[in-house]
């Protein structure tokens, strides 16, 4: 790729999705965009980018941006946040909501493993307490990722990353060499395409927002905007869940880490909402 082509990709990703693409990681850019070029019927990445310059077709722009945004995910990734959800967040919120549903959002859900891990947990919680109401929503920038997530079909490799074997037996059926998640678990999740930098103030309240390993891929400006918008989404007694080692220091005073709970954040009561 030429420096001009790389600059084109970097600026597209920043403008459309707030994504931070490192211009020196040519290999990464090429490995992400080669399949996109092939899928869209171009002989090379250069042809794809030339076509984009010639006609700013929205669908094509998004296939490039979504290709660059593709993230890694796994069932029960890092384990701890799921235990904390089951043992701390859900019970606390259930008490506070007094029968009203607890709303949980998996933001940038990619192929859905995170939200389905929650869905399996929610099933267990509901067995123990039939009165407990937890609603799960998941979103991603990429329609392709959302389609895959909604289908709930995973490879043998994917179902072996983080998923306990008993949960595989309990919730999956084998389909050829793939594994399909049971309809009752899939039905617990509502899906939406959401671009996190396009404004989150209209999406409603979510008591728990899982937004792990997302902010780190964004520009500082985009991170600030997402965090600012999330203050309109997460109530003061709700939780923002980031990756265990993710920090938001230097990104404003919107959320504060909960001491002793790496990755868990609360709204900062002192935060002044910025003028919209």
């Amino acid at each position: 790729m030429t420096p001009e082509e790389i600059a084109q990709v970097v600026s597209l990703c920043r403008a459309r999705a707030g994504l931070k693409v490192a211009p020196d990681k040519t290999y990464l850019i090429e490995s992400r965009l080669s399949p996109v070029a092939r899928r869209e019927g171009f002989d090379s990445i250069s042809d794809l980018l030339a076509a984009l310059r010639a006609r700013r077709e929205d669908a094509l722009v998004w296939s490039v941006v979504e290709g660059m945004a593709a993230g890694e995910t796994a069932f029960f990734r890092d384990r701890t946040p799921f235990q904390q959800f089951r043992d701390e967040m859900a019970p606390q919120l259930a008490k506070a909501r007094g029968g009203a549903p607890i709303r949980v959002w998996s933001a940038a859900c990619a192929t859905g493993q995170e939200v389905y891990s929650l869905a399996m947990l929610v099933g267990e919680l509901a067995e123990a307490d039939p009165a407990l109401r937890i609603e799960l929503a998941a979103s991603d920038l990429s329609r392709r990722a959302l389609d895959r997530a909604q289908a709930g079909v995973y490879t043998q490799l994917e179902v072996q990353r983080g998923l306990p074997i008993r949960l595989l037996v309990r919730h999956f059926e084998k389909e050829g060499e793939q594994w399909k998640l049971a309809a009752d678990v899939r039905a617990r999740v509502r899906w939406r395409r959401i671009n996190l930098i396009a404004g989150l103030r209209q999406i409603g309240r979510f008591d728990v927002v899982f937004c792990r390993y997302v902010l780190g891929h964004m520009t500082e400006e985009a991170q600030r905007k997402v965090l600012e918008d999330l203050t309109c989404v997460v109530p003061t007694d709700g939780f923002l869940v980031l990756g265990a080692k993710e920090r938001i220091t230097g990104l404003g005073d919107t959320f504060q880490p909960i001491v002793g709970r790496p990755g868990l954040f609360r709204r900062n009561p002192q935060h002044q909402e910025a003028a919209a």
Partner: protein
Amino acid sequence: MKTCLVIDDSRVIRKVARRILEDLGYEVAEAADGAEGMAWCGAEMPDAILLDWNMPVMTGIEFLRRLRAEPGGDKPVVVFCTVENDLAHIQEALDAGADEYIMKPFDGDIVMGKLVEAGL
């Protein structure tokens, strides 16, 4: 140091597994079939066992049933590691007392994750 016994009739798989387990800090012993595995466990129970299914002399599932009937045989964490990848086999393994189950091919991440899952 935790010990792991690798029971597999393929020398190549044993070697691959040994490298992964040693990287995870395990002391590794090897057996080529269930009977050899039983001999190891008779001398000293390991903390973990990585167990193939199809082997000559004594299969993995036979080994597991005998192990669980032995005094102290409930102690080792047993992770099946086999090409058998249908629900019937997995269920049979769990019923016989397996803690976790790996479908080949596997990599280091999967082995590590499954051992953690099984409580190690």
